[in-house]
């Protein structure tokens, strides 16, 4: 009953004209950048962070969330039509989706992707509504030591499930945490690593780091790559699936939804892992697996459902524990903090209208996406031919305006340029940027909780193993690290990301 009441409150917030407007702006922007080559959701959300300062927090998060799951939709459109995954979570969709398009079934493939995603979005919204309060309630009992252990577990977990070298990702986390210590230490007024730069006194601004690395750094890296020649499927017919198609879509989409919802909650799980796992599950249980890779409809329905469900349930740890599972979630936390809100279990009780409004708006946004994507597909296909030489100057201009707008300070633009260089450098060194962002967000929180935990225990570190919650997280962290070093898991992980 309480669930219905909460969802009712959320829906009432979500359908307010202003929030409907921002959900629409978000999903529209998300769809566009999902389709546009070389512009990703992380960069877009970073660039738009300063714009959200002027909004109320609920509308701001609704819009940013819309960009996030809108990009998932848009990304699958390009995966199907031109075999170019707009987002990394739609890599799997290229396998069968593009084959379907080549067999003249592009319309059916697009509809499958959109309807599976909508189904997954609806179910996952319910999952979030049920699971989030339970988790938040549970997390209220956490002490400083427990939080510390949880955050360390979250960071280590995020690395395992990320792509690329584990040890380099760990380096990036610690480097991010070190960047987070810049500024005046709130507890004793000592200036740390400020190098007499006035902008450093209040700490490095999250938006400056994100915009510099993702907005500027990624643009430089994109410019360096050669342009791909794209082959666009010219006409899309038979968009609406027949009843027999719907029957073929439903079971794999449901399986993908369940798998995606579960994996999305895990730290670092997120949409990419979910889509890969859903695809291999379908292949495993299929009676004739050789159809996969040759235009199997399950190969589109399951991963598309899974990545959308995971995109949604990734909000659970973010909203209830204040722990980001992915780089995008770190940006959302950054946006909340810049609005003066502390993400964590109190959020749900202090700001129920924000909490439930954001959850309900995800469902509203998903409905908007079906409308945006299916009938307007012709328009998005045209966007695909937009040349990057006209796109990137606008990204740079928005970045510069955004950097300036944070504090109306031209110095921030300069610092942003430094992070642009760093972002490009890390790209070339094959070091992933998302772990750095997670470390930067969680570092100060870990320090604060560590300080409090050790103050209470009079400096005795035994407090971390005395408390059952903290001990559990630490044991799980150690288990993860051991599993990481095991050769079996390493080859499995490599295989999963190669497929």
């Amino acid at each position, binding site marked *: 009953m309480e669930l219905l009441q909460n969802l009712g409150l959320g829906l009432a917030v979500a359908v307010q004209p202003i929030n409907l407007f921002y959900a629409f702006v978000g999903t529209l922007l998300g769809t566009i950048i999902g389709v546009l080559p070389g512009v990703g959701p992380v960069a877009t959300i970073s660039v738009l962070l300063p714009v959200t300062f002027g909004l109320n927090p609920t509308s701001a998060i609704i819009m940013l969330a819309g960009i996030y799951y809108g990009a998932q939709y848009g990304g699958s459109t390009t995966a199907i039509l031109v075999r170019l995954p707009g987002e990394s979570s739609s890599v799997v969709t290229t396998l069968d989706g593009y084959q379907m398009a080549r067999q003249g079934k592009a319309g059916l493939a697009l509809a499958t992707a959109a309807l599976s995603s909508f189904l997954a979005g609806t179910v996952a919204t319910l999952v979030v509504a049920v699971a989030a309060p339970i988790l938040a309630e549970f997390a209220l009992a956490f002490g400083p030591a427990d939080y510390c252990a949880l955050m360390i577990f979250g960071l280590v977990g995020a690395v395992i499930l990320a792509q690329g070298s584990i040890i380099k990702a760990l380096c990036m986390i610690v480097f991010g945490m070190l960047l987070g210590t810049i500024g005046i230490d709130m507890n004793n007024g000592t200036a740390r690593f400020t190098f007499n730069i006035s902008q450093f006194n209040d700490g490095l601004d999250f938006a400056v780091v994100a915009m510099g690395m993702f907005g500027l750094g990624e643009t*430089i890296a994109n410019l360096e790559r050669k342009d791909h020649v794209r082959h666009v499927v010219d006409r899309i017919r038979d968009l609406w699936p027949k009843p027999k198609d719907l029957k073929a879509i439903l079971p794999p989409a449901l399986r993908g939804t369940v798998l995606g919802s579960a994996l999305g909650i895990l730290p670092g799980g997120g949409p990419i892992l979910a889509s890969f796992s859903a695809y291999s599950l379908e292949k495993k249980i299929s009676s004739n697996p050789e159809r996969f890779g040759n235009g199997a409809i399950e190969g589109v329905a399951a991963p598309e459902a899974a990545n959308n469900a995971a995109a949604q349930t990734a909000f659970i740890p973010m909203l209830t524990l204040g722990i980001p599972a992915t780089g995008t979630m770190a940006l959302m936390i950054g946006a909340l903090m810049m609005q003066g809100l502390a993400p964590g279990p109190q959020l749900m009780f202090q700001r129920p209208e924000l909490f439930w409004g954001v959850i309900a708006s995800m469902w509203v946004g998903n409905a908007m996406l079906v409308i945006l994507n299916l009938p307007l597909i012709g328009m998005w296909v045209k966007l695909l031919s937009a040349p990057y030489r006209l796109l990137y100057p606008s990204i740079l201009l928005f970045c510069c305006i955004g950097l300036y707008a944070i504090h109306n300070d031209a110095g921030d633009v300069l610092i942003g340029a430094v992070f642009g260089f760093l972002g490009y450098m890390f790209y070339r060194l094959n070091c992933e940027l998302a772990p750095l962002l997670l470390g930067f967000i969680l570092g100060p929180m870990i320090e604060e909780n560590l300080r409090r935990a050790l*103050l209470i225990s009079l400096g005795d570190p035994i407090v971390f193993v005395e408390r059952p919650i903290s001990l559990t997280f630490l044991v799980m962290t150690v288990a993860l690290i051991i599993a990481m070093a095991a050769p079996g898991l390493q080859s499995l992980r490599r295989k999963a990301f190669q497929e």
Partner: protein
Amino acid sequence: MNIHMSQDRLSGLFFCGVAIVGIALSSNLGLGTPARMAAGFFPMWLSVLLLILGGVVLARSFIQADEPVGEISLRPLTAVLAGVVIFSLAVERWGFALAGVVLIVVSRLAADRFKPLEVFILAVTLVGLSALIFLYALKLPLRLLPF
């Protein structure tokens, strides 16, 4: 510019370098005791951890062959960064309109097919649109023109 050093070795060197600077600066800040952590406590341990992790990356690069960093094309790197730096220095002196146009023209040098008319139209359109959005709709306190 072509860098023959492997990605791992350069990453390892970078992280170790940052860690050493971190250790040096944190020790000046004072460590305190665990119960009463001084400002240097947390960054010191982070730096030590980074030194260990970066050291592993560095050591591994001598055992395992890894891809070299490869060709760095200086044009996109310098054009984009130069555009942004000029913007930051110019925006308060010359006003947003001029700084924005310079940013777009300079950064546009990063990619091929620089057609003066196209770039000019692009710059004027983008600056005009963002002036409407940011200066008039969102009321950002920025001057449009230098006078």
